[in-house]
């Protein structure tokens, strides 16, 4: 019997190695797998590359992981927030590498990784400083940049409901990067507010089919707060 539901954080995060590329779902704090991020802090993996839309707020969660010096490089579109104090300190001190990626290019590079597409052309960032060093081509009279797929060793994502096959639903705008990150990683770990019986999820509403999901941890925490 397939059962991807694990009982403990240690089981959920087993095997995450130093130097891993870790994809973190969420847009700001909505759809962000906060419990798994705290678990990763406890787990202790080092020298990580983090791929996330944002770079953390205050001194908790992702910001705490940065503050502890566990992150070598961050790939994100928007490292600003209401309180990006930790990231900015590290960045100014030259203690963290930043790869700034336009948000749509970030999402598409993840999707491409999950879909077996090694690279794609896009008009985004043509003529800007983010085009530096990238191959360009004119196709049908318009200039494009070549952007490479972005795969993760691990994805940490948040879902609303999950079953033992790893089928997932999401809630409202908390879907955001989670489905594309689930596709793009070798090991995808989801925290879910609700665990339901197999067959209970409406197949029309499953946004991430279980094939993309390795482990599910039940984490009913209630309502998120915006940061």
């Amino acid at each position, binding site marked *: 019997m397939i059962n991807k539901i694990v009982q403990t954080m240690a089981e959920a995060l087993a095997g995450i190695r130093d130097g891993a590329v870790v994809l973190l779902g969420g*847009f*700001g704090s*909505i*759809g962000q797998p906060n419990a798994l991020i705290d678990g990763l802090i406890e787990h202790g993996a080092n020298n990580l590359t983090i791929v996330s839309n944002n*770079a953390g707020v205050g001194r908790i969660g992702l910001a705490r992981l940065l503050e502890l010096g566990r992150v070598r490089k961050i790939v994100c*579109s*928007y*490292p*600003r927030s209401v309180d*990006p104090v930790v*990231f*900015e300190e590290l*960045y*100014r001190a030259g203690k963290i590498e*930043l790869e*700034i*990626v*336009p*948000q*749509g*290019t970030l*999402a*598409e590079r*993840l*999707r491409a990784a999950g879909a077996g597409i090694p690279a794609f052309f*896009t*008009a*985004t*960032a*043509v*003529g*800007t*400083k*983010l085009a530096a060093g990238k191959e360009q081509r004119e196709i049908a009279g318009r200039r494009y940049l070549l952007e490479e797929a972005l795969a993760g060793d691990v994805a940490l994502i948040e879902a609303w409901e999950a079953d033992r096959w790893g089928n997932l639903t*999401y*809630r*409202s*705008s*908390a*879907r*955001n*990067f*989670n*489905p*594309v990150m689930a596709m793009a990683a070798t090991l995808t770990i989801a925290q879910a507010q609700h665990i339901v019986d197999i067959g209970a999820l409406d197949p029309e509403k499953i*946004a991430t089919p279980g094939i993309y999901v390795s482990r599910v941890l039940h984490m009913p925490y209630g*309502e*998120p*707060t*915006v*940061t």
Partner: protein
Amino acid sequence: MNVPTKYRPWTRGEIAARLARAIPEGWYVNLGIGAPLQVADHVPTDREVIFHSENGVLGMGPAPAPEAINRWLINAGKQYVTLRDGGAYMHHADSFGLIRGGHLDLCVLGAFQVAENGDIANWSISDNDSAPAVGGAMDLAVGARQVWVLMEHQTKSGESRLVRRCTYPLTAVGVVKRVYTNLAVLSVTVDGFAVDEMVEGLTLDALQKVTDAPLRPPQH
């Protein structure tokens, strides 16, 4: 000797209202974070315009009443919003697919500078930014069928934001079609900025004095 011209600049709300009135029914529109978000409040109530937020919300409605907040539903500015009847959620790659695939009729962006050739600079003010943050601006600027900019005509220190060539790092090249400022509405043409409207009491000469890029008179 110059006689000071008597005029009152439009307020942010008045600029947003002017822009909103120009959006036809049925358009799919993304509003950039900051001042452009106000445009949604000024679309005439009998006109259906569908707003997109790049974090996966199509058919976004106004802010909820405090007792009716859905804590999982925010806009790109990370404010609570609502979903209108007929609205839909999608994941980030689909949300940017509709942007980059040319499906949005319009994106309204704020900007630091717009150049007479339609270049826009709105994401970074220096090459040595303490923390450069681009978000979705570059995708929106090249993906939407039209880009209109809503911004103050001048910086706080009085420099023109309408320039011959942008000096700040570019967001996109040659994409801006129209600019709404507190002093005027301008179109970007092959011959540079053309003034479509000005605040009452302002003359083209007076507007030119506070504008770096050369201006052409109204074309109608």
